[in-house]
Every structure is written in C-alpha cells, then in structure tokens.
C-alpha cells in the first residue's frame, strides 16, 4: 500500500515510549486515483532504509570519519543515489532528537558495544533503564510515606576491578539506585578527586513530587543519568575509582557516606566550637584534616580561620611565602574564561540553528500537504484535461516537498547530536571552575596554616621572653610553652601535608587541562566534520528530489515555450 505509514522507523527500546512520531505524513494516504503516479523514489527511500537497518552505526560522528573502511562500506551498499558520503545511518534516526542507546563520552574513550577505546581493549558500557516507583519506609511523621523513583543500572565491562564472569573476561551486572545515590556518588568523587575535571552531574531539579513522577521528567532524568555515568566511565582516572565501582556493582544500599545530613553536621561542629574558643581542646588541624577542604567539613573554627585568612589575603595582609605564582596558570584561566564565553554564544546560536532547520522542515511538509489536498481536489472535480495535468504537476511538487521535509528533519536530528558537543563542553566549564576552586581552597589552607604557624611562633617567643625574666623559670609559663611547641609540631606536619596536597592538586589541574585541550580539539574537530558531512549528505538528497521535479516539469521552462 502506497503511503508513508509503512515507512519503518526503529522504535525506542526502553519501556517508556515517550516520543511517538507525531508525523502527520506518516499516516497520509496518497490517493492515487485513476491516474497512477508511482512514487519511484519513495521506494528507493525505503530500500535504503532497510539496507541500513542491519548495520549498527555509532552515534558520535567520529567513526565514519576516522576510519576509511567504514565509509567505504557505505559506498558499497546498493544505493541508488550517487552521493559523496552517506550521512550517519537512518537506522539510528527516530523522530525525536534523542535515542536510548548509550552515548559515548564525546567519542574519545570508551565506546558502546562494538567499538573499542583507543587506548586498550578495555571497555565499559552503562545502561540506565526501567524506572520504578518505590515507597520510602516512612518515619511516623509522614503517613503514606514518600515515593521516589529508582532506576536499573546495568553495566557491562571487562575491566579487571569488576571481576569477570565468563571466558571473554567480561562481566555484566545490575543494581537499583535512586537519584539521591547519584548525588552521593558525585559528592564523594568531588572529595576524592580534587583538581580533576569531574563531569558535572545532572541537576537536582527541585520540583514538586507531582512533576517528579511524570513520565517525561523521569525519561529526561533517566537519559541524563545514563549520559552522566557513561561520562564518568570515560574519564581516564575516575573510571578506575572505587566510588564508581561501588556505585555500579554493590547490591542493596549504597555503601558511601551521604551528604544529606546537614543538620547533624552543623550540630557536631557547633558542639566543638565553644570548647575550641575557650581553649579547652587542641584546636590544631591535623594532617589528615589538612588534606580536606574546610568548607565541606564540620570544623567550623577552621572555616572561620580560613575565612579570616582569605580576607587578610584580599586586604593585602602579610604575604605568605606560598603565592600563586604560576603565570602560565593565570593565562590559562583567562583563556578558559574566554572559551566559556564563546562556547555559551555558540551553544545558543546552535540552538537557534536547530530550531530554524526544524521550522523549515515543518513548513515544507505543510506546504506539501496543502498541494496534495489541492491535487486531490482538482483530480476529483476535473472536467477538463488541463485540470488533470495541473493536478499531476501539483502532486509532483507535493511529494517532493514532503520528502524534502523529512530530509530536513532527519538532518536536524543528526545536527542536534553533533552540536551537542558544544553544550557538553559548556557544561564541562563548570567542572573547570570546580577544579580551580579545589586549587584555591588548597592554597588557602596552606596559607592559613602558615599564618597560624607564624602566630604560634610569635606567642612562643613572647612567653620565652617573659619567662626568662623570672629567675628559676615559670612553671605555668613553661608548661604553656611546651603545649605550644607541641601544637607547632602538629601544625608543621599539617602544613607539610597541605603543601603536598596543594602541589598534587596543581598537578591534577595541569594534567586535566592538557587533557581538556587535547580532547576538546579532537571533539570539536569531529563535531565540525560530522556536522558538515551530515549537511552535505542531506543537501544532496534534497537537491535530487527537486532536480527530479524540475526535470519532470521541464516542458514549462521558459526557453521551451
């Protein structure tokens, strides 16, 4: 049966089918009537569709671009159209901008299923699916309890740490997690990987529980989670983290300390404070604590001290020996600030472009529809042959317009994926800020400790001076001095640790920025290439469609009248 409803399009594989094609064209039956207009090129289209349905193509634009072999395979297929290079597969194209297949982290490291990472034959694939409502076991306060959503997280990997279950050396396992767990994971990673560019996690979205349970929202979140976890798994350092492994693999409750209990944390810190202020407990920062940022922690006193220090720094107080002297770093920071600005602009304009492409596709389709109706009408009411001829001409144009409309929209679906790189890097800028903040905080800790040391030492000096005036020594003062000297020792240790930590974070920064530059160049290159190839492919298709109509109506060309 002629018509577009037979045009097979891969349905989304997840359970929540939220993007049914809204295609009016899909259901349009083109009434042939007594004058049969065979849609020759239409069936070409379908044969192309089915021939590509077998092959699985990666979503990121890089594969057909980087390996010549796969682009050759396009050419060898039985295509009736002579094009330079087939745009990425129709098989991937559903009429929504997103698919449910895992998206590789900008094509740089681990890739889904068949495609392996550049560095080794290591792979890890994460799929998020099957959202389910669950009931919180309520505390007596809220009868009926809170409902929340959990997601099934399925991992397939051959990484050693995860153990393996079969001969191929790969393992597959699933866990159920809720969004809160993801927040915990993100926070723990932030603690453990200071100075690294950690992929930003999906937003918390503070909305009312009604919205939380809406299918669309859940689907959005599912997709975002999948993207996030995949990106984590593509980060060369974080993919090996214990936190991630635990999240992905350990059944039952997530065995990572959560961060949600703000109230009790504050309480603990407050309890310690009066003691510290009244000098009753050793208020020194231990080495262990020194390697954690103050702000996240419970030590309110430390937070106050560092705040004081940063104020002192700002006001040009006594210059501590360790300064941010890395000019290169400052330049880099400046450059990244510019980059962020440009990315923001480009990201915005990319959205504008996508919208414009979408609109023109839609209007072209509606134009086609209008002409189909006109042609049908003229054919049915035809009294004269001239009407039938005109109807036939109108139908040619209509068919072409509908096809072109489809091409515009398919092209756009791909464009969205390509230009997504811009959005992703814009998101990554957030991680850059965090990494820089890690560095600043570490430096602040060092500076604080140094000035602490300096004030401790001067106190010792004063005591020594005062004590030396008393013949035979001063028991209380001596005792005090001993205590202070001990404090100094501990603080010295902490300072050394803090400096080490600072240096470590600096090193992480440096490496990560290098990696960022490298990957960004690569990803932008691929983005541009993917975009361009896609545009070429679809423009050619559209040109063919119209050229055919021009040929079919060439009798009307001015020169031939």
């Amino acid at each position: 049966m002629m018509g577009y409803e037979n045009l097979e399009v891969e349905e989304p594989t997840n359970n929540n089918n939220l993007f049914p094609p809204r295609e009016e064209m899909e259901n349009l039956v083109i009434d042939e009537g007594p004058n049969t207009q065979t849609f020759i090129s239409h069936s070409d289209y379908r044969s192309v569709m089915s021939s590509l349905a077998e092959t699985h193509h990666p979503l990121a634009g890089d594969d057909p671009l980087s390996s010549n072999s796969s682009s050759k395979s396009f050419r060898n297929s039985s295509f009736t159209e002579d094009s330079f290079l087939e745009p990425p597969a129709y098989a991937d194209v559903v009429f929504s901008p997103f698919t449910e297949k895992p998206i590789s982290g900008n094509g740089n490291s681990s890739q889904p299923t068949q495609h392996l990472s550049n560095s080794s034959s290591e792979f890890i694939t994460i799929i998020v699916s099957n959202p389910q409502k669950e009931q919180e076991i309520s505390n007596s306060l809220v009868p009926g309890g809170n409902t929340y959503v959990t997601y099934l997280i399925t991992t397939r990997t051959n990484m050693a740490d995860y153990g393996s279950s079969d001969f191929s050396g790969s393992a597959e396992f699933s866990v159920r997690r809720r969004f809160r767990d993801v927040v915990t994971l993100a926070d723990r990673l932030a603690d453990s990987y200071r100075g690294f560019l950690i992929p930003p996690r999906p937003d918390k979205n503070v909305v009312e529980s009604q919205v939380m349970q809406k299918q669309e929202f859940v689907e959005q979140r599912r997709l975002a989670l999948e993207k996030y976890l995949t990106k984590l798994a593509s980060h060369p350092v974080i993919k090996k983290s214990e936190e991630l492994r635990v999240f992905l693999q350990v059944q039952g409750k997530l065995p990572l300390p959560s961060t949600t209990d703000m109230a009790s944390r504050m309480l603990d810190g407050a309890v310690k404070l009066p003691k510290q202020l009244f000098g009753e407990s050793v208020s020194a920062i231990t080495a262990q604590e020194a390697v954690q940022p103050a702000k996240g922690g419970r030590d309110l006193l430390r937070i106050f001290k560092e705040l004081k220090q940063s104020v002192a720094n700002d006001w040009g107080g006594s210059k501590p020996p360790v300064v941010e002297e890395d000019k290169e770093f400052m330049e880099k920071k400046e450059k990244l600030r510019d980059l962020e600005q440009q990315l923001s602009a480009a990201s915005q304009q990319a959205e504008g472009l996508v919208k414009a492409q979408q609109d023109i596709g839609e209007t072209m389709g509606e134009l086609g529809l209008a002409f189909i109706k006109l042609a049908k009408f003229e054919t049915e009411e035809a009294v004269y042959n001239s009407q039938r001829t005109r109807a036939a001409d109108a139908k040619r144009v209509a068919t072409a317009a509908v096809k072109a409309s489809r091409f515009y929209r398919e092209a756009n679906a791909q464009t969205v994926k390509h230009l997504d790189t811009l959005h992703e890097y814009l998101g990554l800028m957030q991680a850059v800020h965090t990494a820089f903040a890690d560095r600043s905080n570490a430096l602040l800790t060092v500076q604080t400790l140094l000035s602490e040391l300096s004030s401790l030492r001067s106190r010792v000096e004063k005591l020594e001076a005062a004590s030396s005036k008393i013949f035979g020594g001063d028991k209380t003062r001596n005792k005090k001095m001993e205590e202070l000297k001990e404090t100094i020792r501990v603080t010295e240790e902490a300072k050394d640790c803090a400096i080490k930590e600072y240096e470590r974070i600096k090193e992480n920064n440096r490496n990560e920025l290098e990696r960022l530059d490298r990957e960004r160049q690569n990803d932008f290159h691929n983005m541009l290439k993917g975009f361009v190839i896609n545009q070429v492919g679809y423009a050619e298709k559209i040109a063919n469609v119209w050229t055919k109509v021009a040929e079919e109506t060439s009798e009307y060309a001015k020169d031939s009248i």
Partner: protein
Amino acid sequence: MLAKQRSLSGSGLSPRSPSSSQPFLSVSVTDPVKLGNGVQAYISYRVITKTNLPEYRGQEKIVIRRYSDFVWLRDRLAEKFKGIFIPPLPEKSAVEKFRFSAEFIELRRQALDTYVNRVASHPQLQQSEDLRSFLQDDEETMERARSQDGGIFKKKPADLMQIFKDVQSKVSDVVLGKEKPLEEADPEYEKMKRYVFELEDHLAEAQKQAFRLVKRHRELGQALSDFGKAVKLLGDSEGNQLGKAFSDFGSQSEMLSFKLQKEAQDLLMNFEEPLKDYVRAVQSIKATMTDRANAFRQQCELAETAKLREINLEKLIVMRSDKVPEVEIECKELKAESEEATRRFEVIVRLMNEELVRFQEQKTIDMGVTFHDFAKGQAQLANDIANAWRSLLPKLEACSP
C-alpha cells in the same frame, strides 16, 4: 521590460514578435517612481506600448499611469465585458509601512505588468476602447476620466432593479410568491460554483504555506549567519589549524546565509506571488458569477413583467378600453427589454464557458512554470549548500588532530 510572459493566448496577437507583417500589441509597465509628498504620495509607472495595430495612434507610446488608473481600466472592463473573467489587479493597499518598500513596489509593478499584458492578449478585451484610452491618452485626459467615473458606472444593476420592483412589487409578490429564489437550476453550473469556492480555499492555504516558507528561508539564513559567526569566534581562540577550519566554516555559513536570503526573495516573487495571483483570478471568477446571477434574475423578472403586461393588455382589449394603444406600446417595449435581458444572460453563459476552458488551460501553464521554477530554485539552493559544505572537507581532513 516584460515580466514573465505567462498569459500567452491563442489569439492572433503575439506580443513577442515585432515583425511588422504580423499584428502585435506589446505592453510593459516599468520604472516606478515615487511622486507627491506625505499622505498624498503615490507611485507612478511608465507604460510603454508598441504596436502596429491600426486602431492605435502611432507605433510607440509612452504614458505615465498610477495604480488608480489601472483600477479605472479594470472597472470599465468589468462593466462592459460581463461574462469575461477580468484579469485581477494586485491588492489596493498594503500595511502603510510597506507601501513604499522596494519589495512591495517591485511586486506591484510585476503584477500590473502581468495584468495589462493579460488584457492585451485576451481576444475580446484587447478590442476595448478603454484599453486604448488607457494606453494612449495623456495624463490630464486620464485624470479627468478617472474622477468622472464616480457617477454612472458605480450604480449596480441592483439599483436599476429596484425601479422595476417598486412598480411591480405588489402584483409580482402575489403572482410570484414572496420567497421565490431567482437562481439557475443548472446542476452543472451548481457544480462549477462549488468547485470555484472550494478551489479558492485550497489555493489560499497553499499561498499561506508558501508565504511561511519564505519566512523560514529568511530565518534559516539568519540563524546560519549567527551560528557561523559564533563558530568563527571559537576558532579564533583555538588558533592553529583547527581555528582555521572554524574560520572557514564561519565564512561558508555567511555565504550560505546570503544564498538563503536570495532564495527567500525569489520565492516571494516567483512562488508566493503567482499563488496569490491565482487566488485573485478565482475571485475574479466569483465576480463574474455574481454578474451572471444578476443577469439571470433580471432576465426572469423582466420576463415576468412582460408577461403580466401582456395579460393586462388582453384584459383591456376584451374590455375595449381606450388604454389599449398605450399598453400595446408598453408591451412591445417590455418584450424588447426582456429579450435583451435574455440575450445578455445567454452571452454571459456562453462567454463563461469559453472563459472557463481558457482559464483552466492558462492556469495549468502558469502553475507549471511556477512549479518548475520553484523546483529549480530549491534544487539550486540545495546544491549550493552541498557544495559549500563539501569544500570544507579536505581542509577538515588535513587538520585532523
């Protein structure tokens, strides 16, 4: 210069071939010029006529005309050539802001040129005296004719009918019945009427989408330009090969943006405007349908009136009234008028049938040209886009990181 020569008819006149042996009449509307000040400002056009027809004084004539002169001509033709589908004129007024925009002026000029040429190539309309006046009279004569026109020709047939009705109303109502619908009972004509109304709807929809398509092209051009600029800036901060590729990308985007704007313009002139013209032509048919309905009603009513007078006369003859000779004359006059009305109606019917055939054939050609040009334009645009992007590929290939 002659705009697209769409309305070539099978008449003996071929506007294109100025060989002196063959009769020809060629007209063009050119050189729009803004005249006057402020609210009174208007556009004037040069109308150039080249002909070897004996009815015209001289081989070449150039006159200055304004829009209202074209309207005058249309109204005169509509009066005198009932049954003919008078070629449509472009709309009277646009939104005030655009009245003098280059785009609007050019569209109007083109439409006026097409209009005059259609009149000049129509087998009956080209005989019109008014056409000759329009093409030849000097500006003062034209202006006088235009201002005089307010009177007689504005009176509709309905007004004339009122005179008869007032005289005959009481009798007629009793005899004819108050609510008798004076409409033709011709099923084929009914079908044709329905066709015309529905056709207008379809065409209006097509035209609406065509206009939207113009807008979409402009929007896409703008979006592409903006995006290209942003990409270029991104590339500037990258430096190196990649930066160069980004820069090239930006240039191509800019270039394509121009092409899109140009295509939008072409679509406006050569795709949307012809569809609009088609709609206007259908509206002209509807006007003719109104004329036919009026003629039919007039025919019916005059026939009735004549018949009644005959009956009256017969009564008077039987009564040997001395009014007989008077009424006899009246009957003769009424009969003649009734016959005239019938003849007028029949002419309209005949002409309409001919016109319809002509209309359908002409429109098939017109739309064929429109479709062809549309397809060509879109194909060209798509090829330009493909080529522009393709040109980037070797450079992108070269700077693979």
